[in-house]
């Protein structure tokens, strides 16, 4: 069975660990970690990903800029992007969604909900690939 790849972009090691740990429950999914926007773009270029989970407040390149950069890349123009962040204001959410994020979760996260959303995105992505 093919494995789907998830990229987790998050500068806090604790949060990165928590997300990776939670995603162990997702079937046939492999997690790759990145520490900031620039590192994230590097990973995206080096492999093919089916889902990107990103924080917003990160050094070097923030998550909002990362979302904009991902959508600019023809290879990733429709990859599902889930934003996980401390920023709960409508302005922040609107900005992320306007730039192309598909979903937005605030911290502290409910790992059960995170898993649900990821499974849904991966399922849709698999179905779309099979239809193509």
């Amino acid at each position: 069975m093919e494995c789907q790849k998830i990229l987790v972009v998050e500068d806090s090691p604790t949060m990165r660990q928590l997300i990776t740990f939670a995603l162990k429950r997702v079937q046939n999914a492999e997690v790759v970690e990145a520490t900031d926007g620039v590192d994230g773009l590097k990973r995206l270029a080096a492999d093919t990903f089916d889902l990107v989970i990103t924080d917003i407040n990160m050094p070097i390149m923030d998550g909002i800029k990362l979302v904009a950069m991902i959508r600019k890349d023809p290879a990733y123009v429709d990859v599902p992007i889930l934003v996980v962040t401390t920023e709960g204001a409508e302005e922040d959410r609107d900005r992320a969604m306007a730039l192309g994020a598909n979903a937005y979760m605030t911290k502290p996260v409910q790992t059960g909900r995170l898993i649900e959303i990821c499974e849904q995105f991966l399922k849709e992505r698999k179905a779309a690939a099979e239809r193509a």
Partner: protein
Amino acid sequence: MSPSDPQDPSQRAEEFLQIFHKGAEFTQELLKENERLRYRLLEIEKEATSGDREDTLAKHLRPLQARIDLLENEKREFERRLRDVEEENLSFATRYVEIEAENNMLANLYIASFQLHATLEFSEVVRTISEIIINLVGAEAFAVYLLEEKSGALSPISAEGLDLENLPVVPLGEGFLGKAVQRQDLYLEKDVPSYTLNLERPMVVIPLCLGDRPVGGIAVYGLLAQKENFSKVDFELFRLLGGHAATALSAARLHTLSARKLSTMQGFIDLLTQK
């Protein structure tokens, strides 16, 4: 008088006779019909009162009635089982939600503990504590205080969402912070929605204790906007921090001291052996 004369008496007699005959015939027929009908009526009455007809009907109805009863029983049975299944389903769903929440909590606690003990670098332990409080609890303003043995006061060593310089040094046993740490009692604000930032009165005080010895405290002064109240996870995280953060900080401090001692001794030895 002529034969065609309508007034001819013999003619009229003839006509009268004919009419009488016809009448008689008609009456005869009526009588016969009457006889027939009476006979038929008797027959039908006999049929109706005799058990035959009832028996036939009953014979047909009884099995049908029995079938209806059987089906109704089955239906009731199914309804009962459906109710049981629905109840079971509901209890499974409730249990699932409980287990999921517990799973989420355990994941948080596991990762927090894992990270705290993953390093002996003091600055990294402090950073991990901050990460736990920001990401896992969801606080926006907080500070970590360490108890200084010599002065017996809690000194702020790290702050988030606040300026470190604005934070007071708190003697053990004084103020909200000092008292809670001395008593080694976790303090939690009861009315979270109406709390406003107050350096004299934190929302949460987590005493950091090594066994029964206080070594410091974490004070939370404000939560992220989307966090409305504390939950079970938070209580458990505070308890975990109370013990594990203290251990991790102490271990790191000892490590730094011994590393320093080691490098001092090494330096000394190098100095001596340089000749």
